[in-house]
């Protein structure tokens, strides 16, 4: 028996195993045309106490507010002032400028690693703006925008990324695995999805204490496959925890297409199976993301429990500085992505409103680039990865436990004696 796959292989079995397909592989044209994208404004906004099964149309459809002309249309159009919209635009541009700078610095060897969120800026920025400061954020490495909205100094973020003496994580974590207690931004784990079920516990504790704070958690399309996501949904639904469970479907998980996690339907649909109201939203539509997040947060705060939200977007760049997407997807995919660029779309909306112009946009982008460059200088003044100053080496023995136990103190002494 022979079995030819991809015109090359020979094996003894005639396999009947189904293997999901990618939106494209190098040399192919992406199949994004086949995506069913509903027109902006076509979906209704249900009441806060909607029954989960009554959100099926929202889970299989897609909440969109900005139409092709940049107008905000339909029931989901949020009440946002031009000032707020400009703040959102500024944050997104700021994130992009930061990402570009840091990526370049990695290429120059100043960072060991970096991860951009290009094309996905609306997710974190609009969501952070829609939440309250007291709400606890359990992000992945691709929601750096949350920190911008919450006001974290970029110098501090940079210091973390270069593990210098100014790093609040004391040189312990790889770049981009931020933690910022003051901003209610949870320590990012290297282990995918673990934060998702922790967020539910945090929200359960909030309800236990009778408080009104909610938790919000993020996970990527590929990471939805992890057991923690199952645990999170089960516990959130069981205890009606005040939590917002987000899936950022940017179509790829390193080289693996979303089809290896989506089972051929929307991610949002999975929430329905756990009896959680679930929606899919155009993740490149700042207004739609903002509106859906507001709605979900209001539900949680009103005691209606969790909401499951799929943010439909696209990872425009490689997975990280260690990745080479040309090895596994067509180079024209990003251009073929039908939902555009979130910055361009919000800009168009503001220009339409007469609240923004190309000139202002260009000036702002330049201003932010300069500001990021200044921040970088201030950060490296506090130390570089290769040459320091770093935290003292002996500090690695701290925080393993609250107090250093005797056996660690002895190990610490050995290091101290050498340095």
């Amino acid at each position, binding site marked *: 028996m022979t079995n030819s796959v991809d015109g090359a292989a020979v094996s003894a079995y005639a396999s009947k195993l189904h293997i999901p397909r990618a939106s494209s592989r190098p040399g192919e044209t992406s199949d994004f045309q086949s995506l069913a994208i509903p027109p902006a404004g076509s979906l209704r906004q249900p009441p806060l106490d909607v029954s989960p099964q009554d959100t099926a149309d929202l889970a299989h459809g897609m909440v969109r507010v900005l139409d092709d002309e940049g107008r905000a249309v339909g029931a989901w159009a949020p009440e946002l002032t031009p000032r707020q919209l400009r703040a959102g635009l500024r944050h997104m541009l700021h994130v992009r400028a930061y990402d570009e700078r840091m990526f370049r610095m990695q290429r120059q060897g100043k960072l060991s690693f970096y991860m951009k969120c290009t094309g996905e800026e609306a997710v974190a920025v609009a969501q952070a703006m829609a939440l309250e400061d007291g709400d606890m954020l359990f992000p992945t490495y691709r929601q750096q925008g949350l920190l911008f909205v919450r006001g974290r100094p970029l110098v501090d973020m940079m210091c973390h990324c270069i593990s210098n003496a100014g790093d609040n994580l004391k040189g312990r974590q790889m770049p981009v695995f931020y933690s*910022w207690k003051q901003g209610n931004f949870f*320590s990012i784990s290297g282990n995918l999805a673990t934060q998702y079920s922790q967020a539910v*516990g945090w929200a359960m504790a909030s309800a236990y204490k009778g408080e009104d704070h909610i938790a919000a958690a993020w996970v990527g399309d590929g990471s939805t496959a992890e057991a923690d996501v199952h*645990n999170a949904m089960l516990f959130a639904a069981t205890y009606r925890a005040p939590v917002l469970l987000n899936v950022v479907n940017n179509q790829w998980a390193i080289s693996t297409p979303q089809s290896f996690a989506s089972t051929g339907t929307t991610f949002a649909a999975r929430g329905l199976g756990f009896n959680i109201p679930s929606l899919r939203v155009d993740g490149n539509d700042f207004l739609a993301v903002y509106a859906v997040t507001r709605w979900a947060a209001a539900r949680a705060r009103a005691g209606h429990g969790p909401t499951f939200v799929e943010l439909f977007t696209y990872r425009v760049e490689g997975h990280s500085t260690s990745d080479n997407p040309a090895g596994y997807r067509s180079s024209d995919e990003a251009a073929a992505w039908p939902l555009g660029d979130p910055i361009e779309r919000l800009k168009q909306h503001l220009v339409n409103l007469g609240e923004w112009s190309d000139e202002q946009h260009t000036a702002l982008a330049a201003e932010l680039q300069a500001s990021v460059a200044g921040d970088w200088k201030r950060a490296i003044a506090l130390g570089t990865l290769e040459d320091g100053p770093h935290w003292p080496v002996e500090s690695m023995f701290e925080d393993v436990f609250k107090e250093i136990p005797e056996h660690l103190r002895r190990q610490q002494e050995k290091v101290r004696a050498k340095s």
Partner: protein
Amino acid sequence: MTAMSMVQAINSALDCTMGRDPNVLVMGQDVGYFGGVFRCTEGLYQKYGAHRALDTPIAEGGIVAAAIGMGVNGLRPVVEMQFADYIYPAIDQIISELARLRHRSGGEFWAPVVVRAPSGGGIRGGQTHSQSPEGIFTHVCGLKTVMPSNPYDAKGLLISAIEDDDPVIFFEPKRIYNGPFYGHNAGGGRARTWAEHPAGEVPEGHYSIPLGKANVLRQGTEVTVLSYGTMVHVAEAAIEHSGVDAELIDLRTLLPLDIETIVESVEKTGRCVVIHEATRTSGFGAELVAEVQEECFWHLKAPIERVTGWDTPYPHAFEWEYFPSHERISDALRRAAACD
């Protein structure tokens, strides 16, 4: 002071801490309304409410994850694993998250979670209700690992664990939940219930036993015996049976280890035997041997022997042949004592 079984002492520790601190809660499978399959949480639901004696879905990983989130949000969750054998689905959350959170966040976040887990064999539980996985957890930096051997210690150590700001894995040797156990050929005139045993006398109120302090249960001159949990009692019986004048140390806390007490004893006796139920290879006994030989090398008159469970799954029909027996322990003690 009241006579308490280990189950009652654990229940009392939970009751005391829950009564003093509204942030303490217990959670796990069947721990709420029913009071736990081993009855350790009996009455807490009725006394403190469904949210403080919290029944959970059967998802160990989800339970520990939720507990971590709760811990980060100011609570002190005490998680019950129904059996230590079922802790593995939670091990990623324990190792990658619970143990590492304080360090990786530069001290910004931590979760004071206690994971209680009935462990060990001797109840005809077969391979999935008898395991002793404590060794694994002692290899994970950031965790404290505890195993009491009697009701008095169980209560005092559990209260310390709950009040500790670090995560603690608290193994409960289920064979001695309701009475001490001295090996296959039980008793020999010894206590059969905790009510007959001095360590079954337990104060009703709050007290604590510090983590990281071993207990010298028997003074001796010839051999130092290191053990914990159920095997402490088997060792005690075996020592008498052997006629060797051994010093018996109940470690109580495996990590941080009370190496000082151990070294002091071995420097005196010059010999050491390590006993545990867990499988031998890479068990916690290996760490004990490694430490003792490094610290006490120049005092040692005999090789340090380990008497442990065999490197097989725990077999239903051959519990007693698997368990370190009097005979095996006595032989090791005599072999050690014979060296000079």
